[in-house]
């Protein structure tokens, strides 16, 4: 930890869907989620972050039954 900053890993970033997978230490989970929720501007442009799925297991993010689409 450097000052109040938390090291966050951007494990995956997909430009097409604008989706990313972030990794943070457990103690920083609440802080990171709160920071993302409150981030409304970036470089003077409006933006919003929506958290789709969280898990202590990276493997759990590979299968989200809430996104299961039936033909």
């Amino acid at each position: 930890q450097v000052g109040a900053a938390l090291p966050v890993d951007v494990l995956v970033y997909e430009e097409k869907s604008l989706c990313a997978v972030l990794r943070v230490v457990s103690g920083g989970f609440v802080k990171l989620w709160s920071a993302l929720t409150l981030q409304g501007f970036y470089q003077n442009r409006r933006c919003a972050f929506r958290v789709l799925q969280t898990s202590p297991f990276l493997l759990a993010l590979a299968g989200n039954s809430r996104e299961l689409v039936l033909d």
Partner: protein
Amino acid sequence: MSAPLRRLQQAPRHLLVCEKGHARHARSRHEAHVRDHAYNCRVSVLIPECGMLPQVLKSAVADLGEYYVVRGLPVHQLLDLEFIECFVRKGSCYALAYNTRIDQDNTAALLPTGKLILSVDKDTYEELGLQGHPSRYSGKKPMRYIITIDLTDSNFHPDGKKHKRVLWALKEKKPLEFDFLLAWYNSGAEGSTLMSYFPKNQIQALKPKVTFSTLRDLQCPVLQSNELEGKPEESCSTEELFEWLGAVLNQVNLDNVSSSFLSTYCCPQPNTVVDQAFLCTITGFIIPEKIIQLLEQLCCYFSEPKLAQWLTLTVHGFADSPVSWRENEHGFHKGGENLYNFVIFRNLDYWLQMALGTNDDCPP
């Protein structure tokens, strides 16, 4: 640090257990664990040093069978004597409400043991008037209740008081209706009779989606089956393998350096680079019987000499299922994970890792 600030640093509770066994051991519980986990939405198989679908898996993947979606099915129809005699008492019938959220909505599931599980909010519970118990993860003021009805109970027959009460509650007092995912397994009999039981405009047959891909130049951790904790310089631990597998299935770059600006995740050491690895992904409503067949064929993969030292089979459960293993209650806190992963070694030793989230019990 004050209590509120301390709470900011608390991450939700979770559990990862690992069991070691041998697939050919008489008392091995690998099949029992698979069988106990009724509802599965995704199965992934990763085989290092393999470029295409192996012969042993061809028939298992082709024979995944069908599952069904029944729209707007009233729950009381699952109490029909004909349905119970044809599908619940014979073979294994699986049903799970689709597109309901366990932390917000009412939901229902039918286990192959014949138990109908209703997970309902407080208002619905009071309106239904059926006997249940508060959810274990409901806090001081119960806002969620679980009602379990044993459809195969000898006392539960159409002339009995119990059946009449339940039917009245679900049909007239507080009718509950869901879109259900259904599957039926009966060895030796055709599986198409669910299709003929429900009206044609209500039921739709679907096949699990299967995709294949070949990963090139993949860094794979070195593992030793009897070293679950890993051995420095010699093998990786089960947790490191679990995280690495998550990285592979999520297409995370394994090549970062610790000073990288974006990500510091690296493949655990020691590792080897394999030229190619085969990844097969199956999504849908997959029943345990089919997963056991896949598992058995994966054990047969090593009956001939292979370059791979191990392979993995990962199964994800439904986040909104009311149960995880057996009848253990499952909930959704910040996530609904209930998944397990097999690592099968050349000598047929296996590691079985089971992962659960906050609102979950320890797996059996």
